[in-house]
């Protein structure tokens, strides 16, 4: 890590989000350093996906600031934020339904490819070159995820676990610095979850990736995250290493219900 980089890749400062009268997120701060494997957990309805939506520009915070890679990003459009290096997967898988596995990943290469519309219309050599490069890179990624053999299948025809992996592959195709995974283990059996844990660790090492993970599956969270933040009712109730979190009284109360 060079000394020129900001110490934090993601710096969320006291962010609020109101929907009408409802406060979904209150005074939330979140710090993710470069290369971290960071978990965000909380009971159902705690606001975890709302946080993701705020980070990626789907929602605009009512108050507070979000800094990513040294730049302020709150209020920016999702495609800008993706171009800056933050990508995500979705809680309810959002693959492109009419497109093949390969096309799904190739689409994500869009922001890293250099073409003008005129190139496409006329069919210049540059266009052909870019298309080949995009296809090659996409196939490379699919190969890593073991999905290359299925590349011509309609993406939504794949089994559930493969679709989840495809979504992650697609996100990686945008060459992010920060990968947001929204409940990647949802609907997985214990074996698949173990494989997923390996996959996530491997991605972190192989791609020098920073990962922020929202997850309900405690085994996965405690198993791979180095640092965990717990939120409930839109507010932070604890931050720390897995061992601390497991013993934290406020966390236990939030999950098991208090008085």
């Amino acid at each position, binding site marked *: 890590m060079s000394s020129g980089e900001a110490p934090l890749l993601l710096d969320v400062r006291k962010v609020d989000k109101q*929907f*009408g009268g*409802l406060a979904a997120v209150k005074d939330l701060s979140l710090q993710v350093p470069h290369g971290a494997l960071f978990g965000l957990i909380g009971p159902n309805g705690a606001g975890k996906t709302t946080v993701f939506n705020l980070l*990626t520009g*789907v929602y605009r915070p009512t108050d507070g600031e979000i800094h990513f890679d040294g730049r302020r990003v709150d209020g920016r*459009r*999702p*495609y800008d934020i*993706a*171009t800056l290096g933050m*990508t*995500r997967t*979705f809680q309810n898988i*959002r*693959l*492109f*339904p*009419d*497109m*093949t596995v*390969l*096309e799904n990943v*190739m*689409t*994500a*290469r*869009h*922001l890293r*490819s250099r*073409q003008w*519309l005129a*190139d*496409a*219309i*006329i*069919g210049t*050599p540059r*266009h052909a070159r*870019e*298309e080949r490069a*995009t*296809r090659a890179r996409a196939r490379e990624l699919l190969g890593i995820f073991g999905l290359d053999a299925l*590349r*011509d*299948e*309609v993406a*939504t025809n794949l089994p559930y676990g493969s679709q989840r992996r495809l979504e992650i592959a*697609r*996100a990686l*195709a*945008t060459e992010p610095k920060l990968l947001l995974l929204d409940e990647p283990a949802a609907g997985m059996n214990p074996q698949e979850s173990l494989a997923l844990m390996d996959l996530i660790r491997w991605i972190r090492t192989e791609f020098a990736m920073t990962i922020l993970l929202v997850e309900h599956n405690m085994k996965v969270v405690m198993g791979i995250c180095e640092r965990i933040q717990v939120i409930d009712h839109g507010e932070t109730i604890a931050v720390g290493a897995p061992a601390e979190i497991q013993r934290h009284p406020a966390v236990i109360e939030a999950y098991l219900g208090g008085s």
Partner: protein
Amino acid sequence: MGPLRKVVALVGTIAILAALNHVFESGLGDFQINPYYARIINLIGINITLAVSLNLINGLAGQFSIGHAGFMAVGGYTATFVTVYYGAAIAGLVGGTLNGGPGTFVVMAVSLSAGALAAALAGLLVGVPSLRLKGDYLAIVTLGFGEIIRVIILNIPAVGGATGFTDALPITTFFWIFGVAIATIAIVRNIARSTFGRALSAIRGDEIAAEAMGVRTTRYKVMAFVVSSALAGVAGGLSGQLFANPLNPQNLNFVKSIEIVVMIVLGGIGSITGAVVGAATLTVLPEALRGFDQQFPGLRMVLYALLLILFMIFRPQGLFGRRELGWTWLRLPGRTKIPVALSDSADARQHTGRRPTDRRSTLGGSDTDE
């Protein structure tokens, strides 16, 4: 396709078109094409351009626009205006006249280019505000713009107003019509197979996911809209300068827009082949039923409407769905074929899910939050 093959294809196409054009306009030996059939063939060509260009925005990008006739009007009137008021001067510049030959060729080229540009500009002006909306609202807004354009044109005496642009000079030929049609097909096909095409498909499939993957959704929707409008404008220029076919605001209303929509819906939204087949069928069908129409006046249009409804109920994906008929030599090597997928699969999500800018209130007037 290597550059040499492309040049050969281009030259070959032009040669074939020129030859066919000659047969069309002047006959071959003793054979003269029946003017009635000639006219139908010409109309098919124009409708192909209209349908395929609409398919770019409705089919590929999944944005439902029903104002296409408005862009046809803008482009058509501009093109015709250029020819009528500046045609002689332009022909004179290259030492020609408006009676055929190179002079007329140049005039036509300039005229259509002007039409394309004007329509593209109109597309930009309409697209930028409208494409932020989704689904039904976008449809209605495009319809609205189409009507506004029509009303404005109605009030311009220099282009004929309510009687139509009858001053137009009939310089449209088979060559131009089908040259443009083939070019339109090539353009839309090339876009579809490019990174832009994928971006548009992604926008159609899941706009939120597309944005999250870095696709600049509004920009691309507008770009597609501008290209689509420009092509419609060229079709308008061809149509208005076809013999005995002057542009008239009464004919360029939303019923015309809907006719074009019906062509691509019947053929299969999202399929270029479908658009071509739809355009041809729906140009020929009213003519074929003309005899029937004389026997039972008005019933033809009733059948037309019934056909539309029945198709929607029993075969909403149209004849081709999203499939194309490919000719192997036109395929890029290693190119994967888009599998058949009902356009419903993307749109079904629209039905059950709600979109961020989908503003509507429920009947009781209050909103609920989730």
